[in-house]
């Protein structure tokens, strides 16, 4: 069976429309009022133990206390072991977590957990160019 040229064109347009729609899609911004100031120590970052530090502040710049945050470190390549640690609040609104980076390269640090009011917090930070020892 051979379909007409008009039908073929329509099919192509549908495919193009789906493609354009998909192209324009971007993941939603997950920021919701809480600002996260992220740091990693020591610098430059090398393979081995590091400390993840972050400060949580609300919309009026007050520290956000009592959050339960898990820190996850992933490589940018699939298949590598992620590392996990629980963050401790060392000052009001300021949290720290030790983490051991097992490999050189680009890491992505994820913070996930909940604020005291139950609101979920999800953030992602790139830690590029972790150097070998």
């Amino acid at each position: 069976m051979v379909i007409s040229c008009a039908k073929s064109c329509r099919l192509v347009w549908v495919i193009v429309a789906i493609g354009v729609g998909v192209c324009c899609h971007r993941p939603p911004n997950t920021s919701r009022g809480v600002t996260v100031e992220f740091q990693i120590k020591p610098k430059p970052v090398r393979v081995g133990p590091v400390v993840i530090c972050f400060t949580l502040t609300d919309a009026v710049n007050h520290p956000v206390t009592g959050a339960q945050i898990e820190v996850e470190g992933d490589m940018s390549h699939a298949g590598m072991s992620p590392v996990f640690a629980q963050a401790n609040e060392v000052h009001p609104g300021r949290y720290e977590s030790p983490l051991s980076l097992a490999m050189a390269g680009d890491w992505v640090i994820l913070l996930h957990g909940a604020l005291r009011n139950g609101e979920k917090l999800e953030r992602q930070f790139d830690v590029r160019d972790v150097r070998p020892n």
Partner: protein
Amino acid sequence: MNQISIQNLDPTPFDLMQVPVLGPLFRWRYARPFLQAPLLLVSVAMILHGLFGPSLAPKNLATTLSWLHFRGVLVLVLLCAGNFFCLACPFMLVRQVARRFSRPRFTWPRALRNKWVSVALFVLILFTYELFDLWSSPWWTAWLIIGYFLSVLVVDGLFKHATFCKFVCPIGQFNFVASTLSPFEVKVRDQDVCTRCLTKDCIRGRRDATSDLVVIRGCELALFQPRKVGNMDCTFCLDCIHACPHDNVGILSRLPGTELLGDSLRSGIGYFSRRNDLAALAVVFTFGALLNAFGMVSPVYAVENWLGKVLHVSHEAPVLGLIFAAFLILEPVLLLGSAGLLTQAWGGVQRAFLPLVVRYSYGLVPMGFGMWLAHYSFHFLTGLYTIIPVTQNFLASLGFPFLGEPRWTLTGLPANAVQVIEIGFLVLGFAGSLAVTHGLADEDFPANALRAFIPWAAVCAVLFGASLWLIFQPMEMRATLMSG
């Protein structure tokens, strides 16, 4: 070593078609779509997750399946069985459906009926993989899959037969070259039956007696079974098996790599020694294996930064281009050229330089395959279980959390255990390359075989040493090659 002694080693090949379940499955007319359909569903899931799922590669089906599991399973199946990925290729299922609506009208231009386009695309994919860090981007990985589907639809929508498979598909070319080392090939069981056959349905297709329409397709890749040699260009599509009215085509065991020896006229291929394009494919396959692994170890970044400073270039593309040129042009020219000249000088060989180098370049394929196996099996085995949490996460995102919370701590086998397997693959590849190049020297120059063999053995040793060095380098997964 020659063809006769090889045949004597294996007088009664094992036939996969005689295996319960597998035999009836492969004989079933709808075996191919049956195998393609699950892979098509997985491809759609990968595309959707790549576009709409997590942007982090380790948490996404598109990147995890593409760059860990697909590549790992692919090379292991090629090593242990044959080109069964092409058999179950989901792109061809879409093509088949599209061809029900629109039949192609054109024939692929004669000037392009070779491997040059696919060699260029193979290099392009390796280049874009490094330049755009495809392994770290679910989004671009999804678009690569979509691009592949669209390319198949456009090429095979316009051009007749299996144009995309034979002349365009870079994955297919990879599979064709690697499957020269597979233990199974699609082959006639009894040549006498073919000699008596009048209809040649395996190539022409089986026709309906009344309407004379083709009801079962013959080989779309122009491989005439009685004169087909080995797996080059064979997609294991089963068309010839279904079309043969005498049930005379099987999936037979053979000694891997033997098709790299000998230089007989091969149906749909011609002579290996006259196919510069095929030799270029073999060279890109072999040296590309080292290049692809080099892109993931620490020294590459030092080299790139050094090159960037020397050339006063801050963009990655030109620096990467130079590294590609060094690996895929300069290194092969130096190594193969030196070996060719030495073979002529020491072995007293009269054969012209280029045909000599072309012929022996196929001998390096086992070493290249060893490196691909080592590299891909490393990622596959060390990340073996990561598919579990990624699938849990994917299903949960669709509203089906019946597999539970994703267990992100599941990864795979320990890297030090996998390294032993990697070394095993490299040794296997090295041994295979030595065997093939020695076999070629023995065939071509029986009086001076050792002298002709030594230069090529030295090339194999250099590649083996480089491969070993590579797998002992610290890995470095960086999306930005040139740091500030």
